[in-house]
């Protein structure tokens, strides 16, 4: 073979290596995930990637309407509160699993019982075991779910944690039965799964009409794990990927400036805050037990600048550990504006004119935590950052060793203050204020379904927490999405992207 022929053959061979493009012609959307999907069964993973996948493949009895905050029927055509701890759900007619078998009331009962069973070892069971008493088939379309006590987040828990599974899915208690081979009810069914290569989904033609979830607009969705943002960028530019999420702000902005990529930013329910050792668990005489000191710390942090320069996108400063769109959060509480001068006065008044030193244990967004420490240093307070893995922080927190620790709570995308109760109720190692009143108000709010009463209880609690500066609220996160310009995508209000709503331009 001559050199010329060899070169020609090489060029032809290499040209054929160009990957099949993810585009409208193939009606295939390729979504890049930063992490791999490790199981198809959403009951056994609560990673964000699995939540996105589960939204496509699984349905629950009810779904939240993001515009109204109300829960509307999904698999259930309707639901009725029988009393304050009992709900009757009436199933739609003609519901199908992906294998073509009908969805029955027995399947719903089986799903509840499996998730609530400790032996099932699901990652969602712990959330419903605290209130779930029973699920019973009343007739061939009605299921009655009963709580042990009145519990206001019943519908929330059902919509987030109780994914519907076919009766007998976990034969002989095999918890891995659906890990590789999945049968669900969602608008997309899985056609292939290879952990490294990703998941391929196809629009499910048997999906019911008239429900709150959009039927898939695109025929095929391929979820590809690509861990490196540089590679995701290259794939977006070369047409190998259409959509990605959780993109770092600077990368998202750079990509958005390119003609073939759109950058969309949306809110996240996740909020970042510091928990302070108010109760003196680590040191009964410690400076953080002093209200004036905590108020000084709150005045010292420049939240607006942190959000503008380090969070970016749709992030915003917060003054309570929730965001205003949530139920129970819209309370007019004391806001500590950035005022280092006032902070120094408060410190002097508290008996710390020269400041003090404390350890601040953090596990994410180190640059932001450095900025917080720098603001504190400006008023003479030395915050020694101990940046560790989350698991190390959890361990130290459980052992009561933390003077102050960072937390970023995602609320499981639930727009209800009740979802962050473990920072306020008694017995939780995340609660370092030990204020019996606040603990009581939060507990009471979890034991009544009267929304007005709950709202009043939360208002009392949040007001006290802010007045006493039990915490140091920082900011609400931003969520960055990038997508090819030939697709339409709207950032969701709860931070959970719905790929079934994406369509071609």
């Amino acid at each position, binding site marked *: 073979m001559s050199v010329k022929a060899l070169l020609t053959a090489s060029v032809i061979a290499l040209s054929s290596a160009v990957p099949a493009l993810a585009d409208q012609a193939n009606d295939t959307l390729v979504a890049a995930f930063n*992490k791999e999907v490790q199981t198809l069964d959403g009951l*056994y993973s609560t990673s964000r990637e699995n939540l996105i996948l589960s939204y496509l493949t699984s349905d629950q009895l009810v779904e939240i309407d993001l515009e109204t905050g109300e829960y509307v029927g999904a698999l259930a055509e309707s639901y009725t509160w029988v009393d304050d701890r009992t709900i009757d759900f009436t199933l739609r007619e003609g519901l199908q699993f992906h294998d073509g078998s009908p969805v029955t009331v027995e399947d719903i009962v089986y799903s509840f019982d499996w998730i609530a069973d400790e032996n099932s070892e699901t*990652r969602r*069971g712990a959330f419903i075991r605290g209130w779930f008493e029973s699920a019973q088939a009343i007739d061939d379309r009605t299921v009655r779910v009963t709580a042990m006590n009145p519990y206001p987040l019943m519908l929330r828990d059902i919509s987030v944690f109780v994914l519907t599974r076919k009766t007998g899915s976990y034969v002989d208690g095999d918890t891995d039965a659906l890990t590789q081979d999945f049968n669900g009810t969602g608008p997309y069914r899985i056609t292939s799964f290879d952990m490294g290569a990703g998941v391929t989904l196809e629009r499910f033609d048997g999906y019911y009409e008239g429900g709150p979830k959009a039927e898939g607009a695109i025929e095929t969705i391929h979820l590809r794990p*690509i861990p490196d943002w540089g590679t995701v960028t290259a*794939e977006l530019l070369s047409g190998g990927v259409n959509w990605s999420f959780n993109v770092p702000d600077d990368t998202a902005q750079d990509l958005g400036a390119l003609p073939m990529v759109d950058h969309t930013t949306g809110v996240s329910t996740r909020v970042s805050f510091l928990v302070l050792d108010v109760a003196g668990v680590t040191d009964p005489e410690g400076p953080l037990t002093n209200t004036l000191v905590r108020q000084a710390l709150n005045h010292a942090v420049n939240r607006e600048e942190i959000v503008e320069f380090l969070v970016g996108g749709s992030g915003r400063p917060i003054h309570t550990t929730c965001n205003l769109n949530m139920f129970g959060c819209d309370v007019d509480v004391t806001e500590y504006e950035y005022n280092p001068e006032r902070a120094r006065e408060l410190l002097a008044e508290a008996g710390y004119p020269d400041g003090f030193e404390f350890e601040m244990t953090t596990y994410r967004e180190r640059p932001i935590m450095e900025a917080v420490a720098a603001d504190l240093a400006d008023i003479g307070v030395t915050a020694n950052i101990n940046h560790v893995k989350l698991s190390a922080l959890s361990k130290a927190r459980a052992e009561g060793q933390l003077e102050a620790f960072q937390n970023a709570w995602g609320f499981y995308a639930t727009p209800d203050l009740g979802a962050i109760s473990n920072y306020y109720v008694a017995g939780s190692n995340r609660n370092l204020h030990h204020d019996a009143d606040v603990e009581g108000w939060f507990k009471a709010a979890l034991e009544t379904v009267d929304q007005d009463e709950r709202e009043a209880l939360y208002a009392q609690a949040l007001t006290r927490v802010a007045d006493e500066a039990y915490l140091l609220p920082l900011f609400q996160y931003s969520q960055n999405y990038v997508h090819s310009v030939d697709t339409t995508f709207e950032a969701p209000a709860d931070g959970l992207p719905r790929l079934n709503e994406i369509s071609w331009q």
Partner: protein
Amino acid sequence: MLKFILKRLALGLAVAFTVSLATFLLLNLAADPAAMVAGEDATQDAIEQIRVQFGFDRPLYVRFFEWLGNLMTGDFGDSYYWKQPVFDLLIDRAPVTLTLAAGALTVTVVVGLTLGVLAALKPNGWLDRFALSFGTAAQAVPNFWLGLILIILLGVMFPILPVSGDTSWKHFVLPCLVLGTSSVPQVLRLTRTGMIEVLGSDYIRTARAKGFRPRQILFRHALRNALLPVVSVITIQIGYKLGGSVITETVFALNGLGRLAYESILGADVPTVQMLVFFFALIFIVLSILGDILNAWLDPRMRVE
């Protein structure tokens, strides 16, 4: 010789045990594995459930010896994160890493040897200077950067190769170039130095005087002798290629052992991380023992303590 081999094997086993113990302690003492498995928003109840479910509530020594005992019987344990036997995960991912390592080693050997020999033919000539400059650059450039530059050049600007993935041999071209280039400088310099030394030796001068052709002298007489130290380096490079592919596999989204390690560490998958560290350590131990045995076989003086 048998005594020598047995001693080396015993030493290798001791190293393997130490590595396993150190890995186990680091993984379990540095953090709370139950909290890591449970995730960021897990409630205390959920964390405690996982602690009991996965047996993290049992004493460390019980868990370590249970792991060791299972390993002896060929049971590598089950992954918490991937919900699969660790053995299946390793078998599933190994072909990609082996392909990558083989391709990268080919790049290293072909480029390193060729440039090394060419450089030695005329020391300080333009080819020598080019080879040394290339070697310096290859050593200085980080893998991830070279990978991204090649992706931009050959995947985006001139799209003749796929950017990422591992579904065809074409997907391996860029990663093999990246991983292979990083160890070219060692092979290049060692070959060059060896060749310069050998080409200046008396027996080569004699061969020239006897009228052998330059090609015969170069390949039959000089290169064979110059290659002996290079072979040892290449043996160790096999280990580096197998164990050091984490960044390359991550950048190119290759579904190999390196990426398995990366994801498992992020997911706090203690059984998988433990097994991967043990596996990579074992590769180095086996290669070192093989190297020692090979050297002892070639040079009997090394068998004497």
